């Protein structure tokens, strides 16, 4: 059975190298591609470990859906905003790698000294063949012992959908739609030949525009109704 070990080592080696490349790449798109390579190799290892259904699910859900979603979001992000050429502060990097090595040593010690005792179940290769295959076996176990978790998962997926809709909704302070705009004529409230505003009198008279019945908004001076939001926004951002 040496060939099996060889294939496993090859697959896991590629998976680990690709995972390492994922956290090293500067361009997030390259990171996503490295992650695809890792996931495909992990799916192949699932096949080796008698989990054919989960290998298919891994490829469909992870590499098919989630990674496409990642790349989609990546395309929406302005490339100029991407940080890190390269990584975080050096102290943070040294700390992260050091912690990783320490944790790997700890887990290696735990794995090499482990004494796990468990009752072997009935699902050997023969048992699965008797049930009709991996998918049938999973179906039998899933829908006899785990019906409530399946329904809870369905609820979680529904919640995620609602949450995504909520998070993706357009901003509240968007420009009002054109139908909500009122049409009016802005007029300086000066009678011809005078400098004094006579707003009260003119408003009381409820003057209408000559051309029709549209309202006339009386202004004290020319700038009263011309705000300049773009300029103010620029000032706010630069502060």
């Amino acid at each position, binding site marked *: 059975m040496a060939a099996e*070990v060889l294939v496993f*080592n090859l697959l896991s080696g590629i998976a680990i190298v690709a995972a390492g490349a994922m956290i090293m790449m500067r361009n997030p798109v390259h990171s996503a591609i490295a992650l695809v390579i890792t996931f495909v190799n992990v799916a192949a290892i699932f096949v080796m470990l*008698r989990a054919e259904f989960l290998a298919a699910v891994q490829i469909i859900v992870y590499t098919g859906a989630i990674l496409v979603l990642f790349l989609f979001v990546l395309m929406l992000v302005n490339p100029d905003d991407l940080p890190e050429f390269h*990584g975080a502060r050096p102290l943070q990097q040294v700390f992260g790698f050091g912690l990783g090595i320490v944790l790997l040593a700890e887990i290696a010690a735990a794995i090499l000294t482990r004494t796990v005792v468990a009752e072997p179940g009935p699902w050997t290769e023969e048992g699965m063949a008797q049930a009709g295959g991996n998918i049938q076996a999973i179906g039998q176990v899933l829908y006899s012992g785990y019906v409530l978790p399946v329904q809870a998962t369905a609820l979680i997926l529904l919640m*995620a959908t609602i949450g995504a809709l909520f998070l993706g909704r357009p901003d509240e302070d968007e420009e009002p739609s054109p139908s909500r705009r009122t049409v009016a004529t802005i007029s300086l409230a000066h009678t011809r030949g005078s400098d004094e505003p006579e707003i009260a009198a003119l408003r009381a008279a409820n003057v209408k525009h000559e051309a029709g019945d549209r309202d006339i908004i009386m202004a004290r001076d020319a700038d009263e109704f011309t705000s300049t939001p773009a300029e103010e926004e620029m000032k706010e951002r630069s502060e």
Partner: protein
Amino acid sequence: MNELMPEHFMFLSAALFIIGMVGVLTRRNVLVIFMCVELMLTAVNVSFIGFAWEFNQLTGQIFALFIIAIAAAEAVIGLGIIMALTRQRDTVDINEVRELRQ
């Protein structure tokens, strides 16, 4: 080791998980950090499926299936948050996001 041992996939799982953890700790791009979280979830799946293989059980595979479903929901929510973040702050740098710190 001439035969496929449980230690093989346990080391693979540990390596993938720790690579994901190092990525979360050292990267600054929110999207890459999110990819690292997905990698960590997959590493746990490798463990579950490996133990299911070792003990001839299917419980591990069932759990891995649930983890994949939860990971999909988590990806949707997380990417929605990243979208909202970029719309509001125009950045994906984790160091720029400090509203909760101040």
